[in-house]
């Protein structure tokens, strides 16, 4: 059994004597006898390190990862390449094992990382202030709705159906606590229905929430949405996919108040959904309503440049029930991966990467929609991911593809019953033209097979 403790029998004897008790048990005297467990926990015996390794390796091998199949699965998390230098820097104990930088004199590394990260997020979103991370994308959308509550106190959160289903579900969960009601705006031709939005918003609208690109992969024309929201005095929140942001009009340029998003694609592993990080940026007027930690630059008593956690009077440890958020532990290590990643791809690489994905996604969309029984679910511009409609049962098609080692994407039907035939396909920079051609081959045969099965069924 691996225990990670150093206590010897002699230590124990001497320590008990110094404390003035005769047994460890006596130290627990405050716990009423009735509340003592009085038995062993019903858990297996401890194991040696090598046994634990073998056991967890065997469990991991029962998962089919992006290493084991050719995957086009996205829908909020993406199989991007994580450069080796991220692993190496994140495993440095100086980043891995400290906690929140409460003592800035010995935490300058972490604080400067936050400052650099905030700058990178600010550059991506075109908004002047960013915090040092939230948990992940959907909870960051929830945090934005809370900022809207603090800003204007209105009741209705109006959210596009193009926003990630998990973000919308999170908003629904939080709404009763926030005293908000969530209304959904449908999609038309793959994008937010502007007329429906205009009809739904008004003086009770606290915020309009959209996603760019939206869940169907479509790049939304946000300008009229922002104009409509501003006309009724509502805040505009945009959940952004950070890599395409290297090309897309920024929230800052569009006059959007708050930009949030899922940071996984910035140098974080898939990890079956976490840990990653959520980013949160806003216009200047909201600086004192921001949730979470923010690092700021300052000087020490000798005039030396340094960094501290700043604007802490917003936070729970000081403001308690009046805090702008309850968040304490966030995702700082994952945000470090994010800023290293953004430094690694760099100013030109960010654009090149986004353009590469754009072109390969376009190639893939053309190749796949040329297949019999496959068409585009919408014709809007896309950046990395796009939606198809299949003339065959999607689940069965996906099973056929999986049997050939190809994960063809995400079946839209569960979250979007109106798109029961929908398939969402993501093309990261790790999917080459040859990979896309393979997908076209496998998907084409799978759809054809299912169609002929259906045909045969209809004839018999």
């Amino acid at each position, binding site marked *: 059994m691996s225990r990670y403790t150093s206590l010897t029998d002699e230590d124990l004897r001497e*320590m008990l004597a110094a404390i003035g008790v005769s047994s460890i048990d006596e*130290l627990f005297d405050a716990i009423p006898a009735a509340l003592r467990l009085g038995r062993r926990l019903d858990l297996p015996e*401890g194991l040696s390190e090598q046994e634990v*390794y073998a056991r967890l390796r065997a469990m991991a091998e029962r998962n089919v990862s992006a290493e084991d199949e050719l995957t086009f699965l996205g829908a909020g998390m993406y199989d991007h390449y994580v450069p080796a230098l991220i692993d190496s820097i994140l495993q440095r104990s100086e980043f891995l094992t400290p906690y929140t930088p409460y003592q800035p004199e010995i935490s300058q590394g972490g604080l400067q990382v936050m400052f650099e990260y905030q700058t990178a997020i600010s550059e991506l979103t075109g908004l002047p202030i960013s915090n040092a991370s939230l948990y992940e994308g959907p909870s960051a959308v929830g945090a934005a709705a809370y900022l809207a509550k603090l800003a204007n106190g209105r009741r209705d959160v109006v959210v596009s159906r193009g926003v990630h289903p998990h973000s919308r579900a999170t908003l629904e969960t939080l709404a009763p606590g926030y005293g908000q009601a969530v209304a959904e705006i449908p999609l038309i031709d793959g994008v937010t229905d502007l007329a429906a939005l205009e009809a739904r918003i008004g003086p009770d609208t606290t915020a309009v929430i959209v996603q760019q690109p939206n869940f169907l992969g479509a790049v939304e024309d946000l300008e009229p949405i922002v104009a409509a929201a501003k006309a009724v005095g509502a805040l505009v929140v945009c959940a952004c996919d950070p890599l395409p942001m290297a090309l897309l009009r*920024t929230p800052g340029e569009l006059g959007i108040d708050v930009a949030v998003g899922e940071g996984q694609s910035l140098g974080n592993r898939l990890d079956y959904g976490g840990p990653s990080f959520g980013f949160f940026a806003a216009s200047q007027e909201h600086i004192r309503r921001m949730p979470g930690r923010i690092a*700021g630059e300052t000087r020490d008593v000798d005039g*030396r440049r340094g960094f501290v956690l700043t604007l802490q009077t917003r936070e729970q440890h000081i403001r308690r029930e009046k805090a702008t958020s309850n968040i*304490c532990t966030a995702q700082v290590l994952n945000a470090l991966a994010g800023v290293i990643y953004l430094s690694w791809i760099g100013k030109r690489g960010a654009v090149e990467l986004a353009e590469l994905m754009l072109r390969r996604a376009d190639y893939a969309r053309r190749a796949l929609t040329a297949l019999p029984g496959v068409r585009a679910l919408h014709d809007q511009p896309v950046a990395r991911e796009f939606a198809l409609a299949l003339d065959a049962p999607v689940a069965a098609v996906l099973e056929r593809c999986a049997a050939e080692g190809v994960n063809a994407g995400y079946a839209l039907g569960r979250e979007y019953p109106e798109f029961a035939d929908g398939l969402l396909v993501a093309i990261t920079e790790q999917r080459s033209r040859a990979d896309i051609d393979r997908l076209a081959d496998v998907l084409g045969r799978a759809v054809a097979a299912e169609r002929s099965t259906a045909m045969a069924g209809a004839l018999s």
Partner: protein
Amino acid sequence: MSPAAQTPNGVATQTPQQREEVVTIYERSRPGRRAFSPPALDVPERPLDELLPPSLRRAAPPELPEIAEPEIVRHYNGLSKRNFDLDSGFYPLGSCTMKHNPKLHERVAALPGNARLHPLQAPARAQGALELMWNLERALAEVSGLPHVSLQPSAGSHGELAGVLLTRAYHADRGDERTLVLTPDTAHGTNPATVTMAGYEVVKVGTSPDGGVDLEDLRRKADDRVACLMLTNPNTLGLFDPNIEEIARITHDAGATLYYDGANLNAVMGISRPGDMGFDIVHFNLHKSFTQPHGGGGPGAGPIAVSDRIEPYLMVPRIVRSEDGEGGVPRFDLEEESPKSIGRLRGFQGNYGVFVRSYAYICSLGAEGLREASEIAVLNANYLLALLRRPEIAPYLPLAYGERCMHEFVLSGAPMKRDLGIRTTDLAKRLLDHGYHPPTVYFPLLVEEALLVEPTETETRETLEEFAEAIGAILREAAEDPEIARNAPYSTPVRRLDEAAAARTPVVRQPARG
């Protein structure tokens, strides 16, 4: 300024002069440099305007750094050296359980079957991950004494939010409108902040002279408007509340739920269980008791365990296990349908990478090991407390409440401030020169000049003895010359920073270029 000087115990009293001014990664950037080379363009190069109309594109690319890999590595390695960390030294930060983070955990979390597993992979092809999560849920249920677990929350405060929203759903389902949540005045800031975000009003409950909940005050306040009482036990004073059964009775008689902030679970694993104490909802901080590295402020995870009456409202998706797998192997699935569920609190299934590490830890320690961890955590805390109760220390830094402690304890620096003229913050800053991370300071709020010390079970007795020596040395030094502590630290990469200036005119990003 004079060159760095040393006191007799080898601790610096003045700043080493040679400290370079830091530069940011943006200041290292030079146009034309790069690290990343994109894969070759292997598809037709259609004009950008055809793919993405100019009206949808940004005016200029983001000003990200332009820098080559060797310089990125040096930059971040350089920054890492400006951090203190748990692997370098003692980190008795109270309430945070800075215990050793086993290295094995990084290896197993990085296995491709974990690290490259997509969260939307079909459950049939993620059986290992689902089984791991199921096993972790069962283990946490056993440790807490509450049968139903959701791993979804991302940290302690997220678990609190889940807990209060579950409470809300529970009352709403019974048609019971309640408006208040009780928290003791010793509560962590996340508790009251959570209460507000969940739409309730906070009512504070006092602390009795022995450091527990003031029962009279609780009885007065626990009425039918109260939805929940949030508590930690042991509390943030490091004391187990011996009246917990009575507290549970009062709370439940008022129709409220009892919430357990699990930040202090490291004191009682395998010894006493929140479920048996009468709690309805518990959160765990996997980054505290269950060794997820703290990462400079996350990631963590804050799973919750709940009683039968709260179970119908638990978040989705739930992990379900059935026996009908192939060859008698159990099959695991994600269940999204649950009519009374409060829904989701985040994307996907939670911080799975954290679950892997915590599960590995539980496999390593097993039932006995977990109990021993808590026993030694409590032993170490009491031993350090005994060392700090020596006559040369205790009069300046008395124990705030009680005689002994659980896994942590709170000293008051009030006499030190009065008699030696140094504050708790000065003591903390001087500890930096001795190579320690200081304890938590100025929390809990009801103790004047508080110092909250949590050594954890993974420290040796020698470390505790050396730390106590350092405290003694600082007090002796302050008796001679309080200015030394008041101006500390001296040996750190920077000295005391002007936080007021930072807040007055916030500079929260590198100034934009051009």
